[in-house]
């Protein structure tokens, strides 16, 4: 199937549905399906840099994919130039995926699974735009780290890294973000995918240095519908998936007070993000992925 030959909305919506995606075992295939479906829905908008319209040449720099060298120019000038098209930037995308235990929560599918889909889709999308991509899997430590690069095979490696992530320990933003600062000096885009069950002030302390370093941060705040509006009929003993602590709550509290507290927390996180000039995108894990991708493209466009 060729891009643009069909605009079947139902088909692309179906492909973006996390419920459908969770039945696919190959994350790369998921990412491809999501992005292709998503792109089809964009109606060839040049705004987002997916046209093949030539813009300019620029000299080849280390780290660029050699496949993009225009060999015709090289034969005439004996110099290597990279051919740039509209929508392309000389940027890189670093995906930070939270694999803390709380990310394992979810009624139909876990937040981590959704996060994986999102991360893979972002990587695929960035790859299409010839951005360098990297990934870091973290909980309260850095579990895996893959530096951003646009070399051939990077997408496959990043998706494999994302695919191997498992929900394990608690969440602590400080260490992973410090590590990130130490390794990534170049300015770029940073997509943090997490449920952000942490202290907003501590989050600010962790993320602010990135912002000050010139990184453009987008925070994908994943929450399950049951976390936003829990529905219980009787007193229930809840066990924290990260700390293992238990607490008994009554249904009235969970129906009235709890959603308010969660909303307040989200607002705090959003406020924190704004304070760092970062974007905050709250995502219900029952939603299709296109809104998240939209948010990313908008963000990228703004920061390009």
């Amino acid at each position, binding site marked *: 199937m060729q891009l643009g030959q069909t605009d079947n909305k139902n088909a692309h919506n179906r492909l973006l549905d996390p419920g459908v995606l969770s039945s696919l075992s190959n994350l790369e295939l998921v990412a491809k399906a999501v992005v292709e479906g998503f792109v089809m829905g964009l109606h060839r908008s040049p705004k987002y840099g997916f046209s093949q319209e030539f813009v300019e040449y620029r000299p080849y720099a280390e780290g660029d994919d050699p496949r993009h060298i225009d060999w015709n120019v090289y034969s005439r000038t004996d110099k290597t130039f990279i051919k740039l098209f509209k929508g392309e930037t000389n940027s890189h995308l670093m995906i930070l995926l939270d694999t803390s235990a709380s990310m394992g*929560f979810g009624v139909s599918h876990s937040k981590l699974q959704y996060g994986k889909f999102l991360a893979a889709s972002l990587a695929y999308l960035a790859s299409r735009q010839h951005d360098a991509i990297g990934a870091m899997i973290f909980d309260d430590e850095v579990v895996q780290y893959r530096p951003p690069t646009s070399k051939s095979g990077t997408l496959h490696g990043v998706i494999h890294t994302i695919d191997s992530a498992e929900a394990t320990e608690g969440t602590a933003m400080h260490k992973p973000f410090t590590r990130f600062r130490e390794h990534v000096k170049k300015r770029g885009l940073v997509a943090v995918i997490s449920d952000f069950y942490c202290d907003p002030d501590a989050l600010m302390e962790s993320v602010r240095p990135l912002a000050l370093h010139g990184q453009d941060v987008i925070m994908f705040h994943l929450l399950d519908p049951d*976390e936003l509006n829990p529905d219980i009929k009787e007193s229930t003993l*809840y066990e*924290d998936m*990260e700390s293992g602590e238990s*607490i*008994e709550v009554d249904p009235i509290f969970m129906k009235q007070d*709890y959603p308010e*507290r969660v909303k307040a927390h989200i607002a705090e996180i959003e406020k924190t993000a704004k304070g760092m000039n970062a974007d905050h995108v709250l995502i219900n894990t029952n939603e299709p992925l296109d809104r998240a991708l939209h948010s990313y493209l908008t963000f990228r466009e703004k920061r390009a």
Partner: protein
Amino acid sequence: MSLISPLFLFALLGIALPIWLHRLQTNATEREKFSSIMFMEQSQKRVHVQRKLKYLLLMAMRILFLLLLVLAFTRPVFFAPPEGAVTEDTTHHVIVLDASFSMLEGNSFAQAQTLGQELADAMGADDIASLYRASGTVDIITATTTDPSLIRSGLNTIEPDYGRLDIGAMVTALDSLIANSQANFIIHFISDFQQSGQAVRFADMIPDVINGRPVALNIHQVKTENVPNWSVASVEITGAGSVRVGLINNSTSEQSAERTVSLSINDVVQQSLTEIFAAPADGVSYITFENVIFEEGDNRLDVTLTPNDSLPEDDVRHTVFDNSPPAPVILLSADPESLAVTYLTTALETAPRGYQVELQNINDFDPRILQRYPWIVIDDIGAVNESLSQALQTYVDSGGAILAAAGERALGLTNIPVGGQNIGGGLSFSRATTYNVQGINTAHPALDSSVGWNNLAISRALPIQADDNSNVLISLNGNVPFLLERNIGLGRFLLLNTSLNNTWSDLPVKPVFVSFIAEAARHLSNEALLVKEQVINSYLQLGQNGGASGQVYDPDGDSLLSLADTTQAQSIQLSDPGYYRIVTLGLDSLVAVNPDPRESDLTLMDTQALQNWQTMVAGSAGNTELVDGTVITVNEEESVAIEIWRVLLILLAVIVLAESLLGNRYLRFNTGNT
């Protein structure tokens, strides 16, 4: 505790099942994982804790249920010392209270009860006691106990009766009742100690010493002096309208006394005579009532002494005088003019009882009247035809009796009508054959007092083959039965294997014939079983075929036999003074019952005899310091096994109920909220 079936303990592994189920349930329902509880707040109402406790309680109940069930199957047994377990310091006070007729005299019995109360009060802390009532029998009133109040309350329940106490019999009964006790004994015997209650053999009054245990006898006598007591010793009918009454003074303390003697016939006072009666050498003074008018049948004669003495219960004596006309009896004969009829009629009419013979021609006899007669006579059994035989069979079955003889008409028979015995081998008889009596069952009531059978000249007899159901009472040589009896249903069939016309034998003309007919009549009419005068607590024989089988009414007119007992009871005890009425087939008779005259003799045992008795009892134990309990030999204490499976079953039922209620409540909790 020990277990009878310990292998069932392996079933305790089943307790793992409820634990496993509860664990599953707890894991499945109690906790729910959530991403973060950082925004949650502890519920004020700890429903979960309550539910958890409820779960634990439910599980505990189920485990307990299984535990009890397994335990019940293992049949646990506890071994507890028996009640009144003895130690070396334990003394067993065996309190025996005389409640015989003589204790009705004056305030004897009240004094006896007071003495018993004092004994109960004096019981030591380590002592045990048991209470027995002694009269005609020895009954346990209070089992071995350490509680004196039980003894006191037991004493209050005892009342004297009309029975006679024989000390020898009492000691024998007591031996068996206390045989299982392991303590050293003190037998406290509270009585008036009548001389007449003393055993014939002094040794019979010494209790057995079991396992060398010491026994002491403490005698508590309620009175120490002889008390005069006049009573009616005898009532005799000496002639037509003449009644002789014998009075006796049962004590030597009074030589003469003025008494009014009244004679009542059937509750109507006929005559009263007042005299000063002296106590003669033989102890009996007589007075005679003349011109006494009796009614026909059994007459109730009540002789009463007034004024009453200190034992008024023996101042009246009940007697029965049978003034019945001769009893009717049917004589069935085919030849009313025969010699057999003459001999039988004469013998029956001259019997002491006297019978009125109603001669009937056997060929014209209507069997429907048979039920009016307790017994009948047939002079020749061979004259009984088949239809009459069946009627007679029914008659005997229902309790009637037949005295029959062989005769010329029986010669052609192959078996005896009614009796059913075979007449063997078609043998014929000739005068050439002679017989001798070879065996006599003298224990049989019909042959009780008749002698002379061996002198009979017997020339003919039917070769009857006695079967297993026939009882040969007199046999001839060659094992030929001469007199045999067979019980048929409730009645009897008595067959004399000779003709009664003086041709087969000379029996009809011998004296033994008259006495035999009288005895046989008494036996067949069941009069032999009936003694018209009895003492209290004696037994009236009620053999299944006896005259008393029927109904018996006590002096108050209440029937004593249930419907089943009317034909099955063998005897009945006569426990009250007065007149018992016995009604049976063709018989309606009275039996007079009086207290044993020996109980009226209030002469006390000699003091020396009492001391000897006490000493001999202690001496038989080989130790005279018994009361102190310094030397005892106590058997190893025997434990009493107590099984508790019944208790466990009750607990199981309670647990099941509680578990059901709790489980149901928990179920309601779930359904009500979800």
